[in-house]
């Protein structure tokens, strides 16, 4: 391993500009003649728009335009779409309701945009937005997914507010397995709704060049090419080649910036209309009611076991809240990203899952860090833990008895796990967490009025998203390969253009590590280019822990081609046969001789082309590749959480956290550890602190950071983070992915620890002090003791 190669904890290149304030975020980009957009948003969860009077607003100082949904429809701007087709059990396609970028007839959630005010300054736009008079006829609303089917009708296309009623697995076989079971564990689970809250709120800046009829959009996107494709081909804003999308520095996404949102469509349309650049930057309060939320499942789950604790079958029935409209990938999250992971790390012969997706009068729900897999892990890991307790088997032992031990392993729910060693991570985690010493620590804590509990989460996820044929057969509207272009300059420095997008992950560092090692050139001589559709030919962006497994694999493939071409150039330079050229540590050598040429010399020769005839070999050194993975990757591991609960107040403190993850090849252990830390923090947030609450009128009660609790450093312990390694056989580097693991593993570990401590299983997330205190008062253990 070189000092900057794969496996080295290289400091992040990008951090210098971020921590010195030199980052260029969308809101930092300023175009000549720029105007500011402020949206007029619905204060009601569900209402008919009877009239919009913008007369007074238009007369306000500095106002350039006030545009409404009627104007948008008049200009034939198309609706936003959901790009993954799901079919119901009866074969009918999902019920995708129209989602105009500005509502024209009805508003369906608080925050739904009805008009936009464009003015010379932000202040002028705000002042005028207050003067837009919207006459609403308020309609009854429904926010609870469990009540959606009997709630007021939201979209005509979806009777009973039902988008689809989908299933996976063999219902009859599962039924039979349950009938034969010795023990059945049953749980009702609510996977709480979350608000993503990336540090940089969303923003969009659109510019129209009337001379070339070209539109440019700067936006906070995790996947600018997909944004361009959807806005061009579906919204119909402009032909794809007339639209450039640039996602510059982006301050976090966690999924919420994958999607195509109304605001960017409106900015583009308005910029062309008024012939001036239009910028919109979300405020935090606005973000709460417009960024796609995450999770929001209501599930009944059952696990069937034989007398020895061998799992026979798992069944789950889930209602998934997709909110007021179907966001870009919303349909896939509670289906193919959820039910396909219900086998966990276990050999489960039968699994059957039903998912009903519903509309409600809430912000759309879509992928959020982990997307479906945290929900699946929570179901599986709660069931297993509770089953172990009910059967009087050690939770770790029950897991061991059911672990998948040989690979490849075909689960009953599509996935074919290709590599893993679940025992290894459990064992290592138990040692690091000193599980043996737990009882002693528990007794010690009890002396201070504290109740200790220990919880496991042996999670699995499917990452490296994804083989295009496979997702195509499941309804995905796009392929999920990745592209790369490696441009070697005449002086031997290298630019890599990637279709992935970094918004906190550190690609500028990790991708450069790969290139530096492979070409034997200094790490500093490599730069990574991403996020601009005019530079990078095409790409699918970053989510689903795919950038390493898929994005770097594409770079490997392009580097293979670079090496092959460079060998040809070197052969001419060194006057040897191409087959005799060896490439190692940045040097081309004629086998068995001391004749060699450095990488930089070969690069120069490729461009000056003095040593070979252009007819024989093309000058230049630049290669492109598209890499499509052969399978998903399956990161897995074991997290152990130890909590201490204040017996009087119910306040939970996490006192120990051990994570042992198998991410396959680790490119940069420091960055991977950081990803795990952040993921755990978000998972702990879900378990203990975060929860979006709507009241019955559809108002978001937790509409600001004063009421919505984001995890802070003081809510978390120091983590013990280690890895085990089985390489992924599905990509050349053996990478599995690490970005979502913490968020997937953590909630179940926390809740398993709390329920272990207090002896009652019925606890809702977030497990606030009040929630735990109330649960303790209901606890059967306590009632028995009293």
């Amino acid at each position, binding site marked *: 391993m070189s000092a900057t190669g794969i496996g080295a904890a290289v400091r992040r290149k990008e951090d210098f500009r971020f921590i010195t304030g030199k980052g260029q975020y969308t809101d930092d980009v300023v175009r000549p003649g720029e105007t500011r957009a402020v949206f007029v948003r619905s204060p009601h969860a569900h209402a008919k728009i009877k009239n919009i009077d913008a007369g007074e607003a238009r007369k306000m100082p500095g106002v350039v335009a006030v545009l409404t949904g009627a104007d948008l429809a008049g200009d034939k701007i198309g609706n936003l779409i959901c790009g993954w087709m799901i079919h119901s059990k009866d074969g009918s396609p999902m019920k995708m309701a129209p989602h105009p970028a500005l509502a024209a007839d009805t508003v369906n959630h608080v925050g739904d945009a009805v008009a936009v005010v464009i003015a010379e300054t932000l202040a002028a736009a705000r002042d005028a937005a207050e003067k837009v008079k919207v006459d609403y006829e308020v309609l009854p609303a429904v926010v609870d997914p469990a009540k959606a089917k009997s709630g007021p009708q939201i979209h005509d296309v979806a009777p009973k507010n039902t988008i689809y009623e989908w299933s996976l697995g063999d219902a009859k076989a599962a039924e039979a397995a349950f009938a034969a079971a010795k023990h059945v564990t049953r749980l009702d689970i609510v996977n709480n709704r979350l608000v993503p809250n990336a540090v940089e709120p969303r923003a969009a800046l659109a510019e129209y060049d009337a001379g070339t009829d070209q539109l440019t959009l700067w936006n906070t996107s995790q996947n600018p090419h997909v944004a361009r494709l959807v806005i061009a081909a579906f919204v119909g804003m402009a032909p794809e080649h007339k639209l450039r999308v640039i996602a510059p520095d982006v301050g976090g996404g966690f999924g919420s910036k994958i999607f195509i949102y109304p605001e960017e469509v409106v900015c583009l349309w308005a910029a062309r209309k008024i012939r001036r650049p239009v910028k919109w930057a979300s405020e935090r309060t606005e973000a709460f009611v417009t960024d796609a939320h995450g999770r929001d499942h209501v599930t009944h789950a059952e696990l069937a076991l034989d007398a020895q604790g061998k799992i026979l079958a798992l069944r789950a029935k889930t209602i998934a809240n997709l909110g007021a409209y179907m966001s870009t990938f919303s349909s896939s999250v509670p289906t193919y990203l959820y039910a396909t992971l219900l086998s966990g790390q276990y050999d489960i012969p039968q699994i059957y899952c039903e998912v009903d997706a519903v509309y409600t009068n809430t912000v759309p729900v879509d992928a959020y860090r982990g997307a479906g897999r945290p929900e699946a892990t929570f179901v599986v890991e709660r069931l297993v833990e509770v089953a172990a307790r009910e059967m009087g088997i050690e939770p770790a032992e029950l897991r061991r008895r059911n672990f998948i031990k040989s690979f490849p392993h075909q689960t009953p729910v599509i996935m074919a796990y290709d590599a893993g060693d679940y025992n290894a991570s459990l064992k290592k985690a138990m040692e690091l967490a000193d599980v043996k010493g737990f009882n002693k620590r528990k007794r010690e804590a009890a002396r201070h009025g504290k109740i200790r509990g220990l919880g496991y989460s042996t999670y699995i996820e499917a990452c490296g998203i994804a083989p295009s044929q496979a997702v195509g057969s499941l309804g995905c509207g796009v392929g999920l390969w990745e592209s790369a272009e490696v441009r070697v300059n005449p002086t031997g420095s290298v630019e890599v253009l990637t279709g992935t997008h970094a918004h906190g992950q550190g690609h500028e560092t990790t991708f450069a590590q790969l290139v530096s090692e492979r070409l034997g050139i200094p790490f500093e001589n490599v730069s990574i280019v991403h996020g601009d559709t005019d530079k990078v030919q095409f790409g699918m962006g970053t989510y689903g822990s795919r950038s390493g497994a898929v994005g770097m694999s594409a770079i490997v493939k392009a580097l293979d081609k670079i090496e092959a071409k460079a060998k040809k150039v070197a052969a001419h330079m060194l006057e040897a046969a191409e087959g005799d050229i060896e490439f190692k540590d940045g040097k081309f050598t004629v086998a068995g001789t001391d004749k060699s040429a450095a990488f930089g010399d070969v690069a120069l020769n490729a461009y000056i082309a003095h040593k070979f005839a252009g007819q024989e070999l093309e000058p230049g050194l630049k290669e492109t590749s598209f890499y499509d993975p052969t399978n998903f990757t399956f990161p897995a591991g074991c997290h152990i959480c130890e909590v201490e609960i204040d017996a009087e107040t119910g306040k939970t403190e996490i006192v120990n956290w051990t994570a042992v993850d198998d991410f396959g090849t680790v490119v940069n252990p420091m960055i991977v550890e950081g990803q795990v830390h952040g993921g755990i923090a978000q998972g702990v947030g879900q378990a203990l*602190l975060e929860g979006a*609450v709507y009241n019955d009128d559809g108002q978001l009660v937790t509409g600001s950071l004063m009421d919505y609790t984001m995890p802070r450093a003081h809510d978390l312990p120091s983590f013990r983070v280690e890895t085990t390694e089985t390489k992924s056989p599905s990509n050349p580097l053996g990478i599995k992915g690490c970005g979502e693991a913490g968020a997937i593993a953590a909630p179940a570990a926390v809740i398993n620890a709390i329920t272990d401590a207090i002896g009652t299983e019925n606890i809702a997330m977030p497990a606030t002090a009040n929630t735990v205190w*109330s649960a303790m008062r209901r606890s059967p253990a306590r009632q028995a003791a009293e």
Partner: protein
Amino acid sequence: MYNFTFHRPTTVRQAAGLLARNPEAKLLAGGHSLLPVMKQRLAQPSALIDLSLVEGLSGVELKGRSVVIGAMSRHADVAASPVLAEHLPALASVPGAVGDPQVRNRGTIGGSVANNDPNADYPAAVLGLGATIITNKRRIAADDFFTGMFSTALEEGEIIVRVAFPIAKKAAYEKFKHPASGFALVGVFVSKRGPEIRVAVTGAGANGVFRVKSFEEALKKRFAAKSLEGLSIPATGMNADIHASAEYRAHLVGVLARRAVAKATA
């Protein structure tokens, strides 16, 4: 925010004059309660009268058997005051528990007391020590000052200049933080000064800060945590929201009161 005019008087008299001439004006201290609502356009004062250049409004001083704190004293400075560390450390712990460093470096005692947020920390100390609010017009006893959520005995144009806290031999503050905002979900300040015992609660009551007479009576027999064992207050009149039920808040009042007394007597 909407437009407003900005005044920077240098004396209390000038500030009072400006207030009298601008009925829609607001005093500006640390701005950490006022500016957020202005940014959200929920408040629209015609003018802001900034107190930061007014002389003599900050500092912590020992005056006889009292500690006197200037209205513009920042939370961080009061928390770090050597005078308080020596004579009334329990009081220093109150601003020390406020929000985060940014808030503590801007927020002031005058602003906090005048604002009387039902979850603010200072009101518990003011009531729990029986302090006196000194304005440009008069002196107001703590028991008469807080008149309900976000409401005080301050009259139009009245400016808090100082708050005088009698030194108590035994005192302590226990706070259970609101998980999101960091304010007090419940906070209990207890003190014993000679025969006078006070138990003041913030965060819990639907009408803001209040005293718990039943606890005070129990503590009169013996100022010890044991005296409060088994005592509780009813949930009626407690705040209830998504973060805590009325029952839970009432329960916390008992727990925190016992802990505060234990701390005060440790």
